[in-house]
């Protein structure tokens, strides 16, 4: 290493070399972990609460639980979910854990326990006196959990949660092993202690012969015996009447103590140490031999491994102390050193012969050292497409264009060369054989050579009836049938020298057959280029598997079967087909490299399968496969109904309606979580879904019904969960859809109606009662009122009678004052006087007086009718008597004027009186018997003259005999010469203003005048009768409107 001479002659150079050497000494030679295991590492950056791992376990749902010094983590294959005291953990520092049939238990640094039933954490205080940590836990066959503490002894927690304490004074418990239900082994700081629970107390017994050192770990073997780990060694503990402690492992490496041990499914012994990392001991001839280190020196993560756990899928989990967690998955594929494109291969115990595209080479078994390049030995530097040895002594070498060479394996010498007539027949694709027969596939047909006799037989399109001359693959099966794959879709079978054909092409298009193999069940598998693989079973049924069924690719270049699988080589990967036709594509063996599997470059060797690829040799080791297949553990993780989370652990029953339902689920597979696939359905409503990797499904609108959601999952190896997981959701029917709804509705409506009617009836009756009561009350009231009214009526009647009697008497007085009929007859013999008072007494009056030759007469209508009118008439008559008879005034206008003055004076009317001043309308005439002149003065009352058949209205002054406020007017007069036969009529407005007739109107002046004109020729008596008839006929049912006075005088 150090050249003194060099040092003396050239010190700098010497020191440089020395430095390099020392640096090389310090460089850690990396022994790659990827040789045997795929590694996956997790740390705090990946979600772990702390990189100090104390315990790893797995629950019945498949989740991995990792206890650290600062929290508990649950791993579902993709991510970590962390839990602390905020989630009801008894402490954040987890020291150990165990799993029972229905829950998990965690021990803490603070001396407490936590149980987890799949939903909630429940803390448990073992005892108020426990200050130190729970150092170990174990579960006995009856489900009792045993927890050892640092210095407070041991506790048991039974199935019902009852805690019992067994003090073990002066003993620091490090580990616990369960021998039987009431029998334990305790690992202490000072050896092993045997405990027997009897009559409620724990009897301790030192075990003679046990190592007197710290027993850090006790693990039970499958055989029932135990392994215990001491400071620097591992012992087996054979339990019996006497304990035996054979040492099976001794550590010679520097390390700080064994932390944990595990015997895996394959019987390897894994040892966790501080200082030397994780070490694997493999069984060999009944002993354990150290085989692999996982520590920093050998490319590992950490030198301090605290815990090792094997999950249900056979993956190992190494918990490091300060460096997180590592998952170790055994590798099944191994790649040999790169460089060569291996087209064909053959091995014996010592060497490998590899056919490349530039000749044949012979290497050592590791493939690292090339011994012979045969291009120097007569085998051309050509593509070596086929290698076959019928007996292990001779190797048949097929070349790309130089035919076949036969090589003596021992001497490495070419014995002979077989060539064809042309280049095609010298182009060898494949060589195989059985016994004495060798079969050579060329581009120009199939050649069969009998080694012993040397006979050669050719099969081609024209000879023997091969489907094609280009032979890709040949296989001799267990029944000595020769299967031939060519550049056609027809598979040929040669038996007894006869070629039979099986057409594998069921549809359009063409393809060629590229590889053939036979499995352990004597089924023939044929790989094709473009149509996947075909399987022909003993009954000649043909099945076809393509990429649709999961094949890596439809282009298959090689095919080989091992004990339990069929392997198909493609460009970029392999497909594994199990006996149950589970198809699993196996991706690139190396993340960075894609392999092209060469046609027919496969070899089975001592249980291993070798593939020739364009990147070298690829080894498949079936021992790396999991001994038992574990389907993913299915869990429903969340159910949302209308976007709200619901508790799906209880029965889901929803009221009627339409719901959006989302179901989240997860099939926990820690080995290959991304390869888990799912299928689901709503039982009874849909078929199974397409295979999917999605972990949730949505149903947009579900209405009433009972829905059973069924879910199944498969892992990357095709292991399927059975039975499927199911979740039932019930959505109630709306009421109206229940059979009883309408009858009940009708009943209810009926009741309601009945009730309504009854109520109405009741109310009605009540109302009626009230009304009747009211009626009675009112009737009584009315009776009372009636009596009162009758009393009043009688009173009024009496009074009325009295008043009427008074008025009737007043009429007598009025009549007495009015001129007598004798006087009128004496002065005017032809006259009639129609007087019809409206009431008993009248406001109209007639007056006549004789003064010399003059006769003064008037018809007047006083204001009002009845008693007031009668009073006015009395006043008028008295005043006329005074004016004419006493004051001898005979001129009509003067008389009327004087009359007005006297009325004003008598009634004390002044200009401040009301507008409705009392007075009278009148027609006053003065007839001079000598001159036969009639002087007429009218105060708002006309006079009608009928002479001959003509009528003439003598108009009166348009103001009455009363006070006038606006103007004072003088009354005027008109004088006419009366002729014989003239008839004059004086009248008040009573007749003209009478309502009646068909249209209930006033009689009116015109009709009155016409009537008088019509009857004027009758006698005065007759005229009066006619007028009365006319009046009555006109009035009908109407009452008399006013006093009526009509004076007719015929001259």
């Amino acid at each position: 290493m150090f050249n003194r001479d060099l040092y003396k002659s050239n010190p700098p150079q010497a020191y440089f070399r020395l430095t390099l050497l020392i640096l090389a000494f310090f460089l850690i030679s990396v022994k790659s972990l990827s040789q045997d295991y795929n590694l996956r590492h997790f740390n705090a950056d990946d979600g772990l609460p702390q990189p100090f791992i104390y315990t790893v376990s797995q629950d019945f749902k498949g989740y991995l639980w990792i206890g650290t010094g600062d929290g508990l983590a649950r791993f579902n294959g993709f991510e970590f979910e962390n839990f602390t005291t905020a989630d009801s953990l008894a402490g954040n520092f987890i020291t150990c854990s165990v799993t029972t049939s229905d829950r998990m238990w965690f021990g803490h640094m603070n001396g407490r326990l936590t149980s987890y039933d799949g939903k909630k954490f429940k803390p448990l205080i073992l005892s108020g006196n426990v200050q130190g940590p729970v150092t170990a836990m174990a579960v006995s066959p009856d489900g009792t959990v045993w927890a050892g503490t640092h210095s407070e002894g041991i506790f048991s927690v039974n199935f019902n949660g009852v805690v019992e304490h067994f003090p073990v004074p002066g003993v620091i418990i490090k580990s616990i092993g369960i021998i039987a239900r009431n029998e334990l082994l305790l690992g202490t700081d000072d050896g092993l202690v045997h405990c027997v629970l009897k009559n409620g107390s724990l009897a301790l017994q030192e075990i003679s012969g046990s190592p007197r050192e710290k027993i850090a770990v006790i693990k039970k073997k499958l055989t029932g015996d135990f392994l215990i780990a001491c400071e620097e060694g591992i012992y087996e503990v054979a339990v019996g009447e006497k304990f035996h402690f054979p040492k099976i492992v001794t550590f010679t490496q520097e390390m700080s103590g064994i932390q944990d041990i595990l015997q895996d499914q394959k019987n390897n012994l894994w040892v966790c140490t501080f200082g030397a990392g994780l070490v694997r001991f493999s069984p060999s001839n009944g002993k354990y031999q150290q085989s692999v280190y996982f520590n920093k020196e050998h490319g590992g993560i950490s030198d301090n491994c605290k815990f090792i756990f094997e999950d249900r899928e056979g993956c190992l989990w190494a918990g490091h102390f300060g460096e997180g967690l590592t998952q170790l998955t055994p590798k099944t594929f191994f790649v040999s050193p790169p460089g060569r494109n291996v087209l064909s291969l053959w091995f014996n115990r010592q060497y490998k012969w590899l056919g490349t595209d530039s000749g044949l080479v012979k290497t050592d078994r590791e493939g690292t050292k090339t011994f012979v390049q045969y291009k120097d030995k007569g085998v051309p530097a050509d593509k070596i497409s086929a290698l076959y040895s019928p007996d292990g002594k001779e190797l048949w070498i097929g070349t790309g264009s130089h035919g076949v060479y036969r090589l003596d394996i021992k001497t490495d010498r070419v014995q002979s060369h077989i060539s064809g007539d042309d280049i095609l027949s010298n182009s060898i694709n494949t060589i195989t054989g059985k016994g004495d027969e060798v079969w050579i596939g060329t581009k120009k047909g199939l050649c069969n050579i009998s080694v012993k006799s040397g006979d050669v037989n050719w099969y081609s399109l024209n000879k023997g009836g091969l489907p094609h001359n280009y032979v890709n693959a040949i296989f001799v099966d267990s029944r000595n049938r020769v299967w031939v794959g060519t550049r056609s879709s027809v598979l040929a079978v040669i038996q007894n020298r006869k070629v039979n054909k099986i057409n594998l092409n069921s549809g359009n298009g063409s393809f060629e057959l590229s590889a053939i193999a036979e499995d352990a069940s004597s089924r023939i598998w044929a790989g094709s280029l473009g149509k996947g693989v075909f399987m022909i079973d003993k009954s000649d049924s043909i099945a076809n598997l393509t990429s649709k069924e999961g094949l890596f690719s439809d282009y298959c270049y090689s095919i080989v079967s091992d004990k339990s699988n069929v392997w198909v080589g493609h460009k970029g990967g392999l497909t594994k087909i199990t006996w149950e036709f589970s198809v699993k594509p196996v991706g690139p063996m190396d993340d960075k490299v894609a392999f092209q599997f060469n046609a027919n470059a496969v070899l089975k060797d001592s249980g291993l399968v070798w593939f020739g690829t364009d990147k070298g040799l690829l080894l498949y080791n079936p021992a790396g496969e999991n001994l038992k297949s574990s389907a993913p553990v299915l869990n429903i993780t969340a159910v949302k109904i209308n976007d709200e989370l619901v508790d799906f652990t209880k029965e889901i029953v929803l009221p009627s309606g339409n719901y959006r339902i989302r179901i989240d689920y997860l099939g926990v597979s820690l080995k290959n979580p991304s390869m888990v696939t799912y299928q689901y359905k709503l039982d009874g409503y849909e078929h199974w879904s397409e295979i999917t990797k999605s972990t949730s499904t949505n149903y947009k609108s579900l209405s009433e019904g009972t829905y059973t959601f069924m879910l199944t999952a498969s892992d990357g190896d095709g292991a399927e969960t059975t039975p499927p997981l199911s979740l039932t959701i019930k959505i109630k029917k709306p009421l109206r859809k229940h059979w009883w709804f309408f009858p009940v509705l009708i009943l209810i409506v009926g009741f309601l109606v009945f009730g309504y009617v009854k109520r109405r009836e009741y109310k009605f009756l009540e109302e009626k009662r009230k009304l009747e009561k009211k009626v009675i009350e009112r009737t009584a009231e009315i009776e009372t009122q009636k009596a009162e009214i009758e009393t009043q009526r009688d009173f009024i009647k009496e009074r009325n009678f009295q008043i009427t009697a008074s008025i009737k008497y007043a009429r007598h007085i009025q009549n007495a004052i009015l001129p007598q009929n004798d006087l009128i007859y004496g002065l005017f013999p032809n006259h009639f006087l129609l007087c019809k008072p409206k009431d008993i007494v009248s406001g109209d009056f007639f007056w006549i007086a004789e003064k010399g030759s003059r006769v003064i007469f008037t018809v007047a209508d006083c204001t009002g009718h009845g008693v007031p009118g009668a009073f006015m008439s009395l006043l008028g008559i008295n005043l006329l008597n005074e004016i004419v008879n006493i004051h001898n005034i005979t001129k009509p206008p003067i008389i009327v004027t004087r009359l007005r003055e006297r009325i004003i004076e008598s009634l004390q009317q002044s200009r401040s009186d009301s507008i409705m001043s009392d007075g009278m309308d009148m027609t006053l005439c003065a007839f001079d018997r000598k001159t036969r002149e009639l002087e007429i003065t009218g105060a708002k009352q006309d006079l009608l003259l009928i002479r001959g058949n003509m009528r003439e209205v003598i108009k009166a002054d348009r103001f009455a005999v009363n006070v006038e406020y606006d103007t004072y007017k003088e009354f005027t007069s008109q004088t006419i010469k009366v002729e014989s036969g003239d008839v004059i009529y004086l009248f008040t407005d009573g007749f003209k203003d009478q309502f009646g007739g068909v249209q209930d109107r006033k009689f009116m002046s015109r009709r009155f005048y016409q009537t008088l004109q019509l009857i004027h020729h009758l006698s005065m008596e007759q005229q009066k009768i006619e007028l009365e008839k006319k009046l009555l006929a006109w009035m009908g049912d109407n009452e008399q409107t006013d006093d009526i006075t009509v004076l007719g005088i015929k001259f």
Partner: protein
Amino acid sequence: MKMSRILRFTWILFLIAAISRVAYSQPAPAADENIPFLVTFGANSKTAWGDDDFCQIFFCFVPASQKAPFYIRVYDPDTGGEHDEAKGDFNTSVSFSIYGGKGAFSDTAAQSIHLKGNFKTGYLLASKSFGADARYDMKWYTFGPFNPSEGEYSELLGGRVLKVIAQGVSGDDGNLYRYFLSSSPTENIPLEGGNFFTYKYHFRLSDDQKHVSQIYPYVDDKTISIEISNFDWDNDGIVRIFSVAKNGLKGAVSGEDNWSVSRFPIVAEEKNSTVEIQFIKNQTQQIKRNNVVIAVRNQYGIALPFFVVPIGGVPVYSPKIRMK
């Protein structure tokens, strides 16, 4: 100097630096203390040899920021070989135990000067006994790795504390050793923010008369006087006190197999600071292999801790200048 020699010298330095790192801090005793070794005698020893109770308790402080594993290394843990003190043949076993968890620090039994009761409180994390074993003679033995969470949390100190007990199990020899708080199992790499402290120092004074050793008790704000007790000093020199307000006050020095006590008032400026206690060897008579014990208590009789890395640094006397 020839080029080749320069190169050789440089290369050797490079190699030394590449291979190992010299411990500059967090050892106990600390380099600044100038104390060569800690000492613990076997259980059958005589106290006159310089160990009053054959038990030394140190506390190891790890700051809350520490997340990675750490190690407690012991130099020359065995009792035998060059450094250790033989009394006849080496027949002594000394156990080193490291405690964490609840009670490791908060339980004050381990903080008293005269150990009484159960001072082994807490959770035993690691333990090993050493007799005469050449494998560990003048070599480092590493305890650990330890998870910082395994220490007992002290809110006062702002981190976690582990307790290291070196106890003579049997024999009558003296075990001389040192500690180092390291982030590496194989090298002495100081832990950032880490510290060692003890309430009673058992150590070997330097044989060299020129050497001055010092220790640094921390005086809190509740201390109004301190009492310095020393055991079996064998009149080897003087003890002086330095602080921001004391400039070398002398303390009493014990003889053989006895205790002597000195009391000093603490003024306001000295509160919450470190006091330096110097040990100056006897200049007239060389006393070798002198093992001593020292402790400091406050007015309540409560022991004050000695931090190997003085809290607040080494005190510097600040004289008060009076103007006339």
